[in-house]
């Protein structure tokens, strides 16, 4: 544990802006800008699961990507454990790439088809655990596969040999390989069958309990978000329109957009 105080949030985002140039202005002058994320602020505590819910185009994925520098930040600050990580150079940011890991939506495109599962999972260790030898990496990969509910001998196979749910488990094992404190889960269950979705949701819940990993859980289905999250942020049009404890948001929504999202959940 670092020397920072326990009371401060693990992640704090202040007035984050991510904008893209739409058209015109060849040299940047007079170009129309589009704010995909428009001055968003929020916090995620240690060991907390925060849900970020909204439709396609609401900017929720962009926030997750901006935190790990997969999207350019145009304004605002991001603090991790009290350090302003948005102001760091790329080399200084490297340790945070270990602390913050990402799980992607599409389990088919997020694994390199030409790499064995052993290589997929141990590649992050090559970077962040340079002292480990091949045998240790193999052992750790076996442990991780077992931890996410797969057989250790799957490590010698290739991604195409697995189903969508199994691939998502492999993606989670890869994220866990560097012992992160914070997981950004970008629609990890949207592409999966309902029964597989339930398995993955339960797996994430177990991991939180076991390793006390904090998570930013991004999804468009508010029912799944409510189930897993302690707090929910509702996003539309690049802004957070409502936030609060998940039970409160879902039983007593105030914003009209939240109400719309809740009414879209199929009831039976």
């Amino acid at each position, binding site marked *: 544990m670092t020397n920072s105080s326990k009371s401060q949030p693990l992640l704090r985002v202040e007035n984050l802006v991510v904008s893209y140039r739409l058209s015109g202005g060849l040299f940047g002058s007079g170009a129309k800008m589009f704010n995909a994320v428009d001055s968003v602020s929020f916090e995620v505590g240690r060991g907390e699961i925060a849900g970020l819910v909204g439709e*396609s*185009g609401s900017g929720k994925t962009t926030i997750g990507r901006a935190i790990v520098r997969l999207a350019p930040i145009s304004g605002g600050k991001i603090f991790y454990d009290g350090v302003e990580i948005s102001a760091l150079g790329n080399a200084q940011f490297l340790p945070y790439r270990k602390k913050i890991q990402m799980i992607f939506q599409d389990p088919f495109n997020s694994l390199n088809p030409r790499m064995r599962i052993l290589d997929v999972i141990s590649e992050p260790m090559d970077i962040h655990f340079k002292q480990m030898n091949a045998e240790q990496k193999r052992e750790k990969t076996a442990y991780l596969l077992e931890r996410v509910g797969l057989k250790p001998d799957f490590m010698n196979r290739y991604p195409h040999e697995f189903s969508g749910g199994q691939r998502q488990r492999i993606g989670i094992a890869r994220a866990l390989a560097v012992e992160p404190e914070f997981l950004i889960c970008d629609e990890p269950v949207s592409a999966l069958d*309902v029964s597989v979705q339930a398995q993955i949701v339960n797996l994430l819940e177990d991991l939180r309990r076991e390793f006390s990993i904090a998570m930013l859980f991004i999804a468009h289905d508010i029912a799944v978000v409510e189930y897993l999250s302690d707090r929910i942020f509702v996003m539309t049009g690049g802004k957070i329109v409502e936030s609060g404890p998940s039970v409160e948001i879902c039983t007593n929504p105030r914003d009209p957009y939240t109400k719309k999202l809740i009414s879209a959940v199929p009831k*039976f």
Partner: protein
Amino acid sequence: MAAENLIEVKGLKINFGKTEAVKGVDFCVGEDDSVAIVGESGSGKSVSAMSLARLLPPPPICQVSGSVKYKGEDVYGMSAARLRKLRGGEIAYIFQEPSTSLNPVFTVGSQIAEAVRLHFPEEKNVRKRVVKALEEVGIRNPEQRYDSYPHELSGGMQQRVMIAMALSCAPKLLVADEPTTALDVTIQKQIIELLCRVRESRGMSILLITHNFGIISQLCRRVIVMFRGEIVERGLCSEVLKNPQHPYTKALMDCIPRLNDKSRKLRPIDYDKLK
């Protein structure tokens, strides 16, 4: 009860090599009927639906046995010319991923027009008919959208285009294979409402294929639950949803998170217990 069945399937078996995808199922779809087939990936629901218009690959890749009848006519005994009329003209399909179902290098209007020309060669004003179809599925400015390319439309709009294409040839049966799985929940609601509306206004039948129990009750009257190539339960939606009989049906319903019910633990399906 509907007077005549549009589709009658008896003893349908579908094999891919040694893999038995469907192990002998019977079901029917009547006129002005709405049926949902619910099951997971690999339950055989999609291939069963595709077999209705002989969309599966020919032997030896895929062997289909049993009988599939459209209005009493054996689909597997049809000539190539008759099949072309059946596909699109009488049984139309929409699929899960609208972006891969549309051709990226043609405008959406021209793609719908192609279907119209094939099924209505005598139609004089094809463009007008296509614009009308786009309008029916709730696309604003259909006149302009005719000339849009698929990438200019959102996923929900692309799915509306697919529905317009399917409806443009006035089919008797619309097979919707996971039509909302790739879409946001709010868009999903709109598409289900759209399908309800066109079904009622046209008196068309719908066969909905899905893995999500949540979306069937609004659109469908009857439900068929498939598991590992077999039908494990069937009945009226209202009854099956309220009082599922088969353990698999119960298990499938237990793994869907519901709002304001956080205390209920999600239970993934325990396959060992089922067999």
